[in-house]
């Protein structure tokens, strides 16, 4: 069986950044396994700009952002297998994969980085009533047809869900000559970035209908229209508000689900809120030597944060392989009062650096205080003008603070009135 220091599963921005960081930290025997034909992950189909503002300080398209990392990878002797699907990760870190040139591959790894990204929530999960017609697809699938295959997936479009992919596709389809009739969002706020609402909808006069959903689809062969309705506080459609909108395409942008079948089958604990693995500050999962980063860990809206997170995982994996990763007791983290989750879920007391706690809020907050505590003791408190579910936030925790906390202590991030 082939042996390898580090196997990285997934060659998107997360996998690439983790591999490069580990390489930089002195780990040379690295193998990246990627299912698609090329490295780059989901970025390859994101031909719009808006990537890299934080990390590179310039505005790049998805493929341009990916290319910067792909070029770096090719300068190293990191081994790459594309068109290769990982089927299994065993409890003792044997990675099984297959492709049509090596056949079945088995690699015994010292450490593994999980970077499988996420998938879009499909229609069935929404249980919209109606027909079986064609023309109902996730926004990501539509994006692939337009940007990679070069075909129009439809001419008259309604988009359900105002996640970033939906917003971006509203603009893309309009630029390609289609008519986007409405973007309907179930919640009273959009799940997408403010800049995308402005640049993708408002600039093109596409209506965003909040507290509104699709209750029925119509059509026999191809979609012919949808019935939309407003929803009440409990998100239930309000009778009498139904409106029929003729269209041949319904695009769904109703959320992303981390792609954790491999992790689950391998017996790695997942966080029920993020649907990603439970990790420590180096993004090590509960299984020693297995790390996770990028969208497989938590759904990110900005690739820049993916890169940052993945470098932490790469550094952690390198430390682990070199036998330098220290283990002490754990401090756990917890979100309260509208803070939906925290990544990392736990912090190793033996850690050697400051830690950022990433989180998302469950609704829109204005003029509040973001408070970090341990028991009754306030660690930090900061005024926030606005926080929305669409934007990931973080609070830093100093190394001294961590060292001073009791073992088994709990750090709570909470929102209080200002």
């Amino acid at each position: 069986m082939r042996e390898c220091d580090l196997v990285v599963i997934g060659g998107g921005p997360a996998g690439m950044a983790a591999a490069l960081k580990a390489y930089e930290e002195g780990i040379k025997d690295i193998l990246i396994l990627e299912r698609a034909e090329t490295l780059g992950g989901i970025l390859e189909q994101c031909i719009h700009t808006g990537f890299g503002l934080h990390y590179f300080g310039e505005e790049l398209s998805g493929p341009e952002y990916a290319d910067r990392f792909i070029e770096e990878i090719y300068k190293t002797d990191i081994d790459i297998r594309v068109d290769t699907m990982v089927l299994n990760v065993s409890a003792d870190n044997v990675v099984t994969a297959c492709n049509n040139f090596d056949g079945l591959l088995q690699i015994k790894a010292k450490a593994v980085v999980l970077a499988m990204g996420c998938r879009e929530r499909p229609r069935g999960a929404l249980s919209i009533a109606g027909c079986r017609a064609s023309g109902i697809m996730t926004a990501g699938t539509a994006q692939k047809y337009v940007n990679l295959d070069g075909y129009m997936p439809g001419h008259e479009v309604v988009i359900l869900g105002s996640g970033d992919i939906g917003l971006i596709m509203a603009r893309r389809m309009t630029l390609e000559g289609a008519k986007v009739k409405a973007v309907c969002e179930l919640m009273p706020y959009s799940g997408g970035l403010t800049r995308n609402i402005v640049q993708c909808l408002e600039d093109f006069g596409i209506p965003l209908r909040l507290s509104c959903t699709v209750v029925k689809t119509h059509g026999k062969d191809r979609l012919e229209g949808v019935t939309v309705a407003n929803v009440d506080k409990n998100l239930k459609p309000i009778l009498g508000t139904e409106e029929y909108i003729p269209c041949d395409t319904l695009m769904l942008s109703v959320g992303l689900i981390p792609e954790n079948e491999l992790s689950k089958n391998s017996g790695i604990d997942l966080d029920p809120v993020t649907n990603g693995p439970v990790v420590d500050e180096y993004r090590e999962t509960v299984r020693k030597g297995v790390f996770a980063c990028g969208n497989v860990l938590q759904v990110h809206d900005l690739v820049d944060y993916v890169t940052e997170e993945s470098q932490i995982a790469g550094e952690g994996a390198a430390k682990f392989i070199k036998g330098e990763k220290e283990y002490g007791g754990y401090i756990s983290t917890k979100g309260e009062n509208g803070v939906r989750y925290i990544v990392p879920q736990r912090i190793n007391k033996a850690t050697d650096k400051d830690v950022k706690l990433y989180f998302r809020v469950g609704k829109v907050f204005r003029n509040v205080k973001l408070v970090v505590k341990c028991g009754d003791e306030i660690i930090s408190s900061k005024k926030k003008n606005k926080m929305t579910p669409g934007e990931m936030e973080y609070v830093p925790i100093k190394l001294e603070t961590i060292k001073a906390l009791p073992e088994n202590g709990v750090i709570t991030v909470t929102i209080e009135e200002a």
Partner: protein
Amino acid sequence: MRYDVAIVGAGVCGALIARELSAYNISVALLERANDVAMGTTKANSAIVHGGFDAVTGTLKAKLNVKGTALMPKICGEMNVPYRNNGSVVLAFSENEMETIKTLYDRGIANGVEGLEIIDGARAKELEPHISDDVVGALFCPSSGIVCPYELTIAATEVAVTNGVEFIRNCEVKSISDNGGFYTLGTTAGDIEATYIINAAGTHTDEVARMIGDSSFEVISRKGEYYLLDKSYGYLADHTVFQCPNYMGKGVLVTPSVDGNILIGPTALDVSDGKDSIETTPEGLSTVVERAQKSIPEVNLRGAITSFAGVRAHLASEDFLIDWSAQSERFINVAGIESPGLSAAPAIALYVKDLLKEKLELSEKANYTMTRKAPVRFRHMTKSEREALIKKNPAYGRIICRCETITEGEIIDAIHAPAGARDVDGVKRRTRAGMGRCQGGFCGSKVVEILARELGVEMNEITKFGGESKIIYERTK
């Protein structure tokens, strides 16, 4: 060419009849209006191989149900179609319902169902730990099973075609004229001549019968709606869990599917919007869930991966109608094949063959097969099997559908099989590509690409299920 027999409709009945007849020295055409087999009721039902205690004793329904259910394991074995003898329970929630259980038990015994047992609540809970605490007792039927209805139909068609039956798709029979001695069927695929016609057109059998002037029956369409839950909910039920029947049907059931998903449904609504109405409705779907929770309280929609609806072909007589038409010498109706029609289908095929034998001489062919080789199923293979397979054909090393672990090789096989897949849904039903939790979100466009390549057409000519069900349009600018 003039066929000896034209079978109208490639549902489970038409396909199994075609398979049965393909053993004889006659020419047979299987005509289907859709782009694929199993596009009618056969693709959307509960997939239960019923024990046979429901149908009224003495009816054709009861007889063919019990016989079909007994034949099912054998023909599924011959054709490598997924079948599992998982047994069923009918739950009673009150002493009143225990009376119904008793009636079902007696009827089952009279129909010849073997192994039936009335059990108490505690035993029921032992069999099915997730059922409601309100269950007071149940009817246990060990002979009941589950099957994959479309794979059964696909496999039967493959066997038939291998034996020389002509499968003609996109061939809707619009008119029939009797030329004395033979018929001309006017179809969307041109005129077709045949001496005998077997009308197995499902919910449309009454229309097809009227084409020869037979208006002796009318099909009443009744819709049933379902939810399919992800495999991770598979633990909820191992047996098929029924409720006591009421005047509208068998109540809502919760059952595993042969693939390990959980199916809940159906509702029973008389359809007002046409025989082909397979739209799901918000009301229908919410009733399904509520009523299923009565049996298994843990059922919830978080695990739903898709919903669908099927249409029952009900006759006022409440029985199957399988007989020579009174209007014409050479025309057999196979009508009113509502539940347990799937269970009965193997027996229906034999029954129709015997009818035909009354008028047409059937002599066995020198060479024919009733079996189908198991399609390659990469996901079920061991490591060494996989290794050998990929070595033989590298296309089996390329995974296309990642939720269900389906390879490119399996998809290519499905396209090139006898009566193979021509559209995305056809690939999906044959391989499961796109049937998993992401419902084709990732692999949908790859499947379109492979179909286009293998069939030698442009990507935008590929449809979801034939007709105008286009997936993509013109090239971008």
